[in-house]
């Protein structure tokens, strides 16, 4: 091992320690063991059939592969492209203002970054994809994060850090020109609207006709307001104390939900249908976006972070202790046809659309640029935070998948088949599963489904689509074995629904606010007053526009006669993956501009793969003649049927419902076309720039000029011995300066 101490100022301790580790026998043994663990996990998951398989093999395959990806592939990218400079100061050091720019401990920043990128997405997608069996989802989540998702997050973070923490939209404008920037920003706003709407559909599907759920989620509003007042006027800065009070009240609200469920009067009062809930959500979203943040948004964010950490740890512990056995087969027939009840479309390309977050998520590029890069202490830490943070999210996705595939298959399909298929009754659902579903080895009965609903304190669990209820059911099945026994199943179910609702509502609050700012920024080009965020009429107007935009799609989703999730979720996945295409295209162009075209395949592979997947999916959604799949095929089938004077088609009964399908498919089809076109334009511009750069060898990029660093921080998660020694020198230096 050779150790080099890097100094930038005479008389000061070193600012970095550069180690060139050698392979010692102990290290070789360690990595061989890790590789063997991964290989054992993969062998069990991929090849062994016909026996009871336990969930821990998934953990082995995932964790082993992550460690190898992080140590070898991410390191390779660091070497060949990013090349962190130990002497270079980061934006956090240069522009330190104790606020959005502030050098932050790497372990803390890892936590913040992870909390910002992970939400309901990695929990929902894998659950829906479980209809294809466990193998396709597992392969994509683990390999996808190593080759695509981690690469995108790490490189966007690194390049933004070299550009003073500029946002993805600004970077696109700087690297690809003004037009590219405008198109990318437009795409980002549209994608946010879709995202909020689909998350809204997910949470409404979990809450509709569930007095218990509606009551406990409704209680989060007074709880948050109380926390807000407490922190503003009584105990400013006592974040943990306030959060603990909030969590205790939250648990009480969940328990009280059980009383509401059992009381005929109150359960009637909180028994709301989907449309009412959609209006409640819109009113709530509007208020949350215009009220001062301390009232609602900030305290909710604390609750949400607390719950996020707590629940993920709880689920991990639950899976490891209970070690449930897998019920779903490795691959089902729905991987090869478009008849899957949870969402339509075969494995290629729809698996890669449905599981977005957890393998590759374009939305992360908005956090990896703009927010996190302004807080990093050292360039060398970007790999841990960007790539490592994404690996964590992927692990969350694997746990969600495990929770779904360990459920009884009949129960899984009864919950995830849309209402037109099951009729929303236990009899209809068991008829559908036993006779129509067409998957061997899956059966259920009305008694089983009734019992399952009673176990978790719900009136019915049939057609609870959207993933969130299935995850809650899976978590309840796992956690009641560790904590509380069968009597606690309903508590754990509603606990899980609550924490998903918290995530989603936080995303909706914050998303509406961010989208409002983007819109007023754009409108500021026409009328300067919109630029002033404290101008109330402007704030109200822009918020109303954004809420109307996602609200109309939300209403469309919850009233969709075909079942909102299976028509809208692909649009959500496509838009998220198209955002990834924009991010990867920008990275690709930057790598070429740096004169590193030789290594452009590193972002190039995920870019090409992502484009093939999203463009095929968009193509099928736009042009497929299969009405199960294509929005326009559906549109014209229903339009023709209406013109011919028919009053029903397939499972859709009545002229009104048929007109709704015509309208919905028109909107969905149009959005698919717009998204695909916007992204195609950005990609073409990126390729154009890259070709120009390759011809000339390199092009000037927009990196900030080099400034020497004056601070020290360890490079990796765990400080090494020479780093601890240097840290001690700095501590000594500081205390000497003070006395």
């Amino acid at each position, binding site marked *: 091992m050779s150790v080099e101490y890097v100094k930038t100022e005479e008389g000061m301790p070193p600012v970095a320690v550069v180690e060139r580790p050698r392979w010692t026998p102990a290290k070789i043994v360690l990595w061989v063991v890790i590789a063997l663990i991964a290989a054992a996990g993969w062998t069990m998951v991929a090849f062994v059939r016909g026996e009871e398989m336990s969930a821990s093999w998934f953990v082995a395959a995932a964790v082993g592969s992550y460690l190898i990806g992080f140590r070898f592939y991410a390191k390779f990218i660091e070497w060949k492209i990013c090349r962190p400079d130990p002497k270079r100061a980061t934006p956090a050091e240069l522009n*330190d*203002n*104790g*606020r*959005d720019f*502030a050098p*932050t*401990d790497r*372990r*803390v920043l890892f*936590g*913040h970054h992870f*909390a*910002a*990128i*992970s*939400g*309901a*997405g990695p929990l929902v997608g894998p659950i829906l994809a479980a209809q294809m069996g466990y193998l396709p989802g597992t392969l994509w989540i683990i390999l996808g994060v190593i080759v695509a998702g981690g690469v995108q997050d790490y490189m966007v973070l690194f390049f933004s850090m070299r550009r003073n923490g500029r946002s993805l939209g600004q970077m696109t404008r700087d690297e690809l020109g003004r037009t590219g920037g405008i198109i990318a920003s437009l795409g980002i706003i549209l994608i*946010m609207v879709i*995202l909020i709407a689909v*998350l809204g559909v997910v949470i409404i599907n979990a809450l509709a006709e569930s007095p218990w759920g509606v009551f406990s989620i409704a209680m989060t509003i007074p709880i948050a307001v109380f926390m807000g007042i407490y*922190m*503003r006027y009584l105990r*400013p*800065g*006592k*974040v*943990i104390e306030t*959060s603990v009070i909030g969590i205790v009240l939250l648990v009480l609200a969940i328990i009280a939900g059980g009383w509401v469920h059992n009381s005929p009067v109150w359960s009637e009062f909180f028994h709301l249908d989907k449309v009412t809930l959609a209006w409640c959500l819109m009113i709530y979203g509007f208020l949350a976006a215009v009220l*001062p*943040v*301390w009232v609602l*948004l*900030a305290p909710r*964010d*604390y609750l949400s*972070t*607390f719950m996020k*950490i707590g629940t993920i740890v709880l689920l991990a512990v639950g899976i490891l202790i209970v070690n449930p056995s897998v019920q779903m087969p490795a691959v089902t027939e729905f991987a090869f046809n478009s008849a899957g009840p949870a969402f339509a479309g075969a494995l290629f390309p729809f698996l890669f659309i449905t599981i977005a*977050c957890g393998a590759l*998520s374009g*939305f*992360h590029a*908005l*956090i990896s640029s703009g*927010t996190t890069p302004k807080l990093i202490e050292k360039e060398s830490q970007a790999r841990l935070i960007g790539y490592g943070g994404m690996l964590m999210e992927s692990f969350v996705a694997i746990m969600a998948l495990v929770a779904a595939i360990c459920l009884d298959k009949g129960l899984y399909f009864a919950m995830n088949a849309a209402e037109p298929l099951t009729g929303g009754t236990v009899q209809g659902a068991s008829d559908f599963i036993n006779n129509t579903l067409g998957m061997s080895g899956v059966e259920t009965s009305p008694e089983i489904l009734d019992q399952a609903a009673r176990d978790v304190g719900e009136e019915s669990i049939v057609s609870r689509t959207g993933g969130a209820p299935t995850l809650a059911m899976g978590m309840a099945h796992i956690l009641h074995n560790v904590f509380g026994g069968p009597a606690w199943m309903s508590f754990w179910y509603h606990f899980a629904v609550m924490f998903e609702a918290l995530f989603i509502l*936080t*995303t909706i609050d*914050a*998303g509406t*606010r*961010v989208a409002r*700012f983007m819109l007023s920024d754009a409108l500021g080009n026409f009328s300067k007053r919109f630029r002033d*965020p404290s101008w109330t009429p402007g704030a109200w107007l822009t918020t109303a526009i954004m809420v109307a935009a996602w609200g109309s799609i939300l209403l469309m989703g919850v009233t969709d006669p075909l079942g909102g999730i299976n028509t809208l979720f692909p649009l959500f996945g496509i838009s*998220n993956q198209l955002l990834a295409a924009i991010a990867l295209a920008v990275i690709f162009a930057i790598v070429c501009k740096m004169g590193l075209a030789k290594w452009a395949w590193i972002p190039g592979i995920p870019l090409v793969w992502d484009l093939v997947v999203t463009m095929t999916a968009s193509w099928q959604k736009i042009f497929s003649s299969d009405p199960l799949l294509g929005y326009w095929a559906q549109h014209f089938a229903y339009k023709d049927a209406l013109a011919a004077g028919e009053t029903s088609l397939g499972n859709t009964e009545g002229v009104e419902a048929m007109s709704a399908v015509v309208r919905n498919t028109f909107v969905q089809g149009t959005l698919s076309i717009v998204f695909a076109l916007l992204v195609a334009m950005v990609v073409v511009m990126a390729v154009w720039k890259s070709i120009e750069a390759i011809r000339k060898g390199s092009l000037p990029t927009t990196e900030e000029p080099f400034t020497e660093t004056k601070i020290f921080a360890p490079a990796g998660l765990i400080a090494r*011995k020479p780093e601890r*020694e240097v840290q*001690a020198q700095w501590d000594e230096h500081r205390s000497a300066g003070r006395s």
Partner: protein
Amino acid sequence: MSAAHPLEDALRNPWTTLRRGGAWLHWYLKEIMGENAYLHYIESYERRHGTREGAMGEREFWRDHTDEQDRNPKARCC
């Protein structure tokens, strides 16, 4: 400063290790939840101005810290 490997120290004195681990977890939770924001602000202020004079008081800081999110909202991911 001890030159021994931290693992060695940890195994030699399990109670101290447990206490230190608990303290570390408490510190980490505070950091993640943002409870130490004022502390970091004061440190940063001192770094930049060479003194703590003129920095915001704790109450004032927290008010401003929350209101900052009104002016500069941050996205949360899906």
